[in-house]
């Protein structure tokens, strides 16, 4: 049973990928995607069931030495293929840095893995270990990922229609999507650092292929940017692997995570951990490596949704959270927290100046990833719980929001926030879902805010980090509130008609909004079932506890005294009351009681739109109100430069510190 699940999680997406690529029929492809979606749901469900029934709180897969060796060599073979392909991409597009970074990865890899120059390679015999953290990631990848893929079946048809393609490139597109999902599943399940590196590189390559999918000049340029920035992380990763191998005498990720309590935090280990963090930063688009994620929005929307929510960027934070117990409470942890905090603050500030919807989402993603990394760096039980909860909440909400913006863009032909004025009248269905998605990103009692609150309460012992989070969260409110206000702007409309969407798009939106609500309402069981056991299993010195009892989440001191808490369920009752109130209120108002808004003169027409008025001198003036974007204070070019410098400096400081330790 266990083995079937494991194979299904990794190889089924590979099989679907092959099917999508070989059979070029639209209907068959939709069938393949639908069936794979259901099977992946079942796989996630199967793992949850296994975990609930497992007494130790993890599922371990042992491999015989012989099989282990064979698989290792197979992976090494694929590794070689990957390096060659990436180098080929560099040559083909005449991008020297891609080629150079690929060679820089190949040399240490070959010396270490193939020729054994750095001593024996200690491959762990537990090839796959699934604990609650891995399970959370499996849920994100195998539930949100397929939903987005399913959405893509409807979206890509429209997309190619807009692109006026003669031959559909969808087979290639869906093949890469499925490979991506399989690689992500494998990445979070394996306990072998060098195998993880292989899957890590696959996701890097897939993201290049997906971002450059449309083949336009800008798409290829941004794809290459993603490739080379992530290759920097790859170089850091391979060097870290070599150092871990020689300092800990094992490549087991669990062993790295547990090494913090064994007081071996000197020599090569801190350097290895620092490099792994840098690899995580590149993958998670932390400043100064954020460029690739912003460029990724040229890709078709499902790609951005996938990269931003459940895959790719989550791989980076997964790695950092996974190894964070090893540096919990050390100077490295503090610096990691500061890197995350600075990114959170910087990205939130820049988001204010953006009027491009996708870009706002991208900066918000970067900010939230920063917060996760910040929590991982703080390294207390409460902050790690906040990090894991935020991974879940952010993935569902952001996946949803990208799909929403994609849907809106196909309808109105623009992704500019200002063009979304009055969207509620055109697309009531999508608008309501979008608004709930946005509210879930910034307001209590929804999950993301709860994690922000936990983060602040956990960060009180690190003033610098604290100030970053506090200022950042104030800025967060600004850009979301502006956007929500715009799309809800409307004049009177007697009757609403739901817009027509393809079944796959509609179903995906409904499924994701259900998950958003379910996760936030069910935060207590979610925490108790998946996060709490993991936090307790982490080997860290801090013993303050976070309890999920009654109506909400409560912070306990070591002596179990409560020093903070929030009964979130009670506030959902208010939200529910409001949701029930909406149709009642909307229907109660009689059309005769509706008036146009006050303008600076007589309104031109009697209808309730209120867009034009007659100014003194009998001229007809139209009213245009735009949001504040405050380019002079929060302009992208201006701030990016400074935040990059600050973040870059901190990372160099981090390297200096770990080398000096």
């Amino acid at each position: 049973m266990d083995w079937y699940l494991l194979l299904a999680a990794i190889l089924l997406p590979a099989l679907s990928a092959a099917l999508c690529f070989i059979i070029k029929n639209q209907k068959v492809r939709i069938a393949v995607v639908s069936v794979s979606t259901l099977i992946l749901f079942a796989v996630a469900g199967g793992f949850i069931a296994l975990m609930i029934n497992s007494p130790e709180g993890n599922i371990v897969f042992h491999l015989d030495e012989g099989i282990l060796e064979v698989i290792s060599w197979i992976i090494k073979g694929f590794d070689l293929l990957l390096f060659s392909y990436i180098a080929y991409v560099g040559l083909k597009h005449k991008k020297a840095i891609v080629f150079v970074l690929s060679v820089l990865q190949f040399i240490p890899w070959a010396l270490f893995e193939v020729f054994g120059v750095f001593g024996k390679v200690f491959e762990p015999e537990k090839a796959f270990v699934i604990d609650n953290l891995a399970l959370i990631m499996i849920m994100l990848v195998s539930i949100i990922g397929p939903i987005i893929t399913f959405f893509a079946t409807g979206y890509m048809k429209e997309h190619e229609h807009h692109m006026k393609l003669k031959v559909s490139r969808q087979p290639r597109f869906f093949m890469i999507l499925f490979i991506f999902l399989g690689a992500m599943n494998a990445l979070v399940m394996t306990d072998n650092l060098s195998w993880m590196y292989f899957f890590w590189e696959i996701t890097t390559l897939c993201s290049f292929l997906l971002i450059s999918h449309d083949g336009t000049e800008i798409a290829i340029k941004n794809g290459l940017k993603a490739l080379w920035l992530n290759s920097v992380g790859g170089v850091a990763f391979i060097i870290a692997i070599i150092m871990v191998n020689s300092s800990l005498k094992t490549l087991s990720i669990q062993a790295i995570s547990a090494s913090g309590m064994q007081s071996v935090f000197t020599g090569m280990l801190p350097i290895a951990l620092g490099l792994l963090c840098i690899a995580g930063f590149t993958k998670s688009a932390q400043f100064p490596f954020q460029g690739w994620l912003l460029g990724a929005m040229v890709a078709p929307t499902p790609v951005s949704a996938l990269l931003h929510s459940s895959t790719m960027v989550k791989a980076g934070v997964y790695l950092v959270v996974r190894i964070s117990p090893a540096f919990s409470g050390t100077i490295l942890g503090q610096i990691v927290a500061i890197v995350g905090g600075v990114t959170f603050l910087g990205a939130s500030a820049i988001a204010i100046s953006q009027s491009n919807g996708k870009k706002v989402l991208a900066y918000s993603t970067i900010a939230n990833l920063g917060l996760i990394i910040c929590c991982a760096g703080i390294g207390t039980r409460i902050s790690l719980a906040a990090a894991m909860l935020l991974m879940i909440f952010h993935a569902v909400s952001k996946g949803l929001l990208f799909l929403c913006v994609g849907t809106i863009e196909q309808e109105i032909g623009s992704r500019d926030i200002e063009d979304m004025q009055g969207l509620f009248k055109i697309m009531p269905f999508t608008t309501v879902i979008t608004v709930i998605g946005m509210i879930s990103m910034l307001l209590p009692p929804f999950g993301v805010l709860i994690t922000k609150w936990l983060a602040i309460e956990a960060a009180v012992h690190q003033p610098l980090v604290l100030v970053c989070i506090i200022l950042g969260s104030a800025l967060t409110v600004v850009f979301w509130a502006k956007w929500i206000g715009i799309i809800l702007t409307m004049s009177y409309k007697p009757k609403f008609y739901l817009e027509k969407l393809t079944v796959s798009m509609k179903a995906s939106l409904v499924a994701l909004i259900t998950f958003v609500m379910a996760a936030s309402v069910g935060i207590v069981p979610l925490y108790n079932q998946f996060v709490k056991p993991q936090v307790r299993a982490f080997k860290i010195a801090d013993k303050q506890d976070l309890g999920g009892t009654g109506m909400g989440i409560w912070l306990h001191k070591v002596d179990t005294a409560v020093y903070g808490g929030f009964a979130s369920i009670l506030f959902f009752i208010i939200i529910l009351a409001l949701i029930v109130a909406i149709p009642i209120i909307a229907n109660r108002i009689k059309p005769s009681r509706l008036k146009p808004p006050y303008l600076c003169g007589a309104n031109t027409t009697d209808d309730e739109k209120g867009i034009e008025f007659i100014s003194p001198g009998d001229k007809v003036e139209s009213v245009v109100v735009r949001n504040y974007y405050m380019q002079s204070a929060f302009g992208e070019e201006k701030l990016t430069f400074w935040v990059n410098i600050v973040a870059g400096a901190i990372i160099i400081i981090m390297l200096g510190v770990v080398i000096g330790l």
Partner: protein
Amino acid sequence: MSINNILIAVIAIIVAPLLGGLLTGIDRRITARMQNRFGPPILQPFYDFFKLLGKQGIAVNQTQMVYVLGHLFFAIGAFVMFILQQDLLMLMFILAFSGVSLIIGAMSVRSPYSKIGAQREIMQMMAYEPVLLLMVVGVYKATGSFMISGILEHHQPLIFSLPLVFLSFLYVLTIKLRKSPFDFATSHHGHQELIKGLTTEFSGTQLALLELTDWFDLVLFLGLISLFFARPWWVGIIIALASYFAEIVIDNISARVTWQWMVKITWVVGIGAALVNIVWMYLIP
């Protein structure tokens, strides 16, 4: 949640608006006297409230009322959290929900005045939110707890350890109560460049409920002031009332400033003062 708690919450929800309305009435009377006018009766806010409730319902679109209710319900929620001595930090976030709901309501209509008022309100939030959060952090550093119950159990009044935080909180209060010089989201007087800003397009019942929310907010904030002086409780209440009087004086002696100025000063002086205070709290072992 015990029966006792529910009872306390219900009583508080009934008493708070009475108190808030009364205070607003006194505010109007004092303001009138300062301006050499006689002023309305103390109970005028209640008369206004019921008159507004009785008005014909006129709206610009069907959804406005939803946001007004959101504004009110979450303000009440925050107030109840205060009464039941819950987490102070979360209370601030709940208040933020209330504020955002009003902003969205104001932006939901096509009126330029309402929209500009909403934009300015967002700027206000951006300015005061960090100060409120820093205040909570200061309280934690002093008492070791985020729960309001923890503050009340603390052995000495907070003002001794957090004087600067208190001052910046008072400063922020002027913004939060939309008093002059920071009344640029909804101006006091209806015939200026902004008409009534944020509240231009609300009328009748909606306006009445906005008024009610303001009363809840007023009582909540005076309550937060008194937390700094808690034990004995009557000192806290006297100081809170004195602070409110100070707000009224400031309201009457100052002219409106621009929002750019406000954001700058609040971020530099407000956050600065609170931070200085918190830094020394960190240095005390």
